[in-house]
């Protein structure tokens, strides 16, 4: 197996071909913040919090470490003024939706993020997709998915599947970085509102 040597935060790190920069850093005990990453799941590259600086042949650019493959002799910097500024902004944007998430609050402290910078739209969900992907990739049930796109995108359980699959599983609940209750709420909504609308129809 070919080994690739790269440098992360001044430290020489050995990695296997095909590994991502994030994996290489983790293996060397260097921490990079993440929100949508999970070792059991395919990299998603959505939260962009794990952004780092990579210098290669004299060129420096910003890449997302959870999907960027390791390359020979690259120099990775996990913190820089710009990296920190972008992470701070990402956290502030997320906290408009989930201001009380403990994970976000801890990270906010680290990066000096202001949880009140943007007007609150507490939807709780930060679209990390952990629940959606875990259900699809690990449980292979697809009982929860994303609906719509753009700023209207949200997670939703598929009532027909959820009513069969979810009560005995609920493994996605604890993956949620904002509130375990969030998934519970969406699940309850999916399971109760068809019944409600059915009742409404019946009442007519």
């Amino acid at each position, binding site marked *: 197996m070919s080994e690739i040597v790269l440098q992360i935060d001044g430290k020489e790190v050995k990695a296997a071909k095909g590994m991502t920069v994030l994996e290489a850093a983790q293996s060397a005990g260097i921490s990079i913040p993440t929100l949508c990453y999970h070792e059991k799941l395919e990299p998603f590259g959505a939260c962009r919090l794990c952004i780092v600086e990579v210098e290669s042949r004299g060129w420096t650019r910003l890449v997302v470490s959870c999907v960027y493959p390791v390359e020979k002799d690259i120099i990775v910097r996990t913190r820089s003024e710009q990296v920190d500024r972008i992470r701070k902004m990402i956290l502030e944007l997320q906290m408009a939706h989930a201001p009380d998430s403990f994970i976000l609050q801890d990270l906010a402290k680290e990066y000096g993020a202001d949880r009140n910078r943007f007007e609150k739209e507490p939807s709780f969900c930060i*679209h990390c997709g952990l629940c959606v992907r875990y259900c699809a990739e690990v449980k292979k049930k697809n009982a929860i998915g994303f609906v719509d796109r753009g700023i209207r995108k949200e997670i939703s359980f598929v009532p027909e599947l959820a009513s069969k699959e979810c009560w005995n599983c609920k493994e996605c609940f604890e993956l949620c970085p904002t509130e375990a209750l969030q998934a519970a709420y969406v699940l309850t909504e999916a399971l109760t509102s068809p019944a409600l609308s059915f009742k409404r129809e019946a009442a007519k």
Partner: protein
Amino acid sequence: MPRISSADELAKVSQEMIARRDPNKPRISICAGAGCVASGANEVIAAFKAEIEKQGLTTEVDTKGTGCPGFCERGPILVIYPEEICYVQVKPEDVPEIVSQTIKEKKVVDRLLYADPATGEKATHESDIPFYKNQERIILSSNIKIDPKNIDDYLALGGYSALAKALFQMTSEQVLDEVKKSNIRGRGGGGFPAGRKWEGSRNAPEPIKYVIVNADEGDPGAFMDRALLEGNPHSILEGLTIGAYAVGSHEGYIYVRQEYPLAVENVTIAIKQAEEYGFLGKDILGSGFDFVVKVHQGAGAFVCGESTALMTALEGRAGEPRPKYIRSNVVGLWGRPSVLNNVETWANIPLIINRGADWFTQYGTETSKGTKIFSLVGKINNTGLVEVPMGITLKDIIYKIGGGIPGGKKFKAVQTGGPSGGCIPEELLDLEVGFDELSKVGSMMGSGGMIVMDEDTCMVDVARYFLNFLTDESCGKCVPCREGIRQMLKLLTNITQGKGREGDIELLEELSETAKEAALCALGKSAPNPFLSTLHYFRDEYEAHVKEKRCPALSCKELIAYHIDPEKCNACTTCAKKCPSEAIIGGKNLIHIVDQEKCTKCGTCFEVCPSRFRAVTKISGEPVPPPIPEEARKIVRKSKQK
């Protein structure tokens, strides 16, 4: 028609097609592109068929609906051959006169000719019209000669001869080299050299490879790909097949948006005909090369024009870009090497193969070769598709071809590159059009949208409009794009409503940086461009909105008021009658007053006030003068005084 099974046979068939057509036989070509169809082209075609039959000329005259020649502003448009007389804005009731005068008597119907709006000068031939005269139409010029539903028309113009040349006189490597030498860059937005993209796929070890046509044209106001796919579908199929041969692919896809039903119809017919003739399928032209093409209809998402999102959608999943740092020409559709090029790029390929890279590179600038089709829209006299050599100045496009700004208004900016492009101000109109030239000034080539704006356009509102478009069209996957755009739109909306606060501009800049540096795909990275370029060139407008609550273009509803100048009002009562919210205190011989409480700022009074008075004015950033006292409102007319 039996399959054509050699290059010689193709040459013979083409010769027969040409020989069968009498060049002196009158032929009426009527644009049947979506634009002209919308203005009644199908009715005109039907009227011609009926009239020709009525006058007993069925065997003597050919009538056909063709592809779009580009001059949509004056549609329905037609050309009569062999004289090449061009008539514009033709209506069914004009048809009998055209048949009896022009077809029978060989006389020109003067009133149907194009007349220059400025000079009144008439133009008889297509090539005399300034709109066409200043273009370099190497791709679009075939459209008006072709019935897109009839492959024979394409063959009569030498169609598929480039494919025969590639298959029989060139190795696949030579084809690739010729395309590389032409230096053609992708016409879809990115401007990546097509040859290098092809080479990457060709060299990729995976044996199954794909070639794909990106016809998901999604920029507001852009329709060049539609015109090509509707008007000359075989040229795209030919280019795609040549590309497949060069990279070693045997399967191609056309990803076309569902909102282009005519393009879907025409390209589907074209594929069927090409299969029958032996230009697609097994053993093409007896060369041993196999290639099939399938049409895939997109469900209508702007983001699916992005290469990886398009491929994800082709696979049957939600159209979201992939987060991978590996190019799709190596790992693309179903994880296999996939060459994705835009419609216009593919349409150029047969020309490059037939005429050579050296011919192609004579057009253009150092780094941008060939021609480019733009859809020229907005506040411009000649709306339509224009094909120009790279390196032409914006000024020539807007004034020489576009005919300038209507209504004597002043030019303000031109927006290029679609929603992720930028606005270019007047002082840069001498800029030469090219991929790098446009990027340098903060805009981009994009797929070729060109929206002209006049002095009445508020640049803050333009940025707000495009950000609003993007909030719907972002796929919503990554935070910098989804959340960044959401907040940017909120800030921009507030600014246009006079609720902008000190620091908003800086916050917008910070959000822009995050999107630009950290978004997942090119769409997210370029999403702040409408804001950044308008801020760069029109910062004073942003500041006027935020600091003075003033809209310099007098456009933002919340920041303007309508006022009737008592000195100019003649009490004609027009505005009072037309006001939909009864906000004008009028009366006979009484100077009119706008009731600011009731006014909804619809602008009707401003539009209907007779130009000889121009009494209604727009005010922004200053208080509306108090209404004149009741006793001063009476107008004493001179005629009555006597």
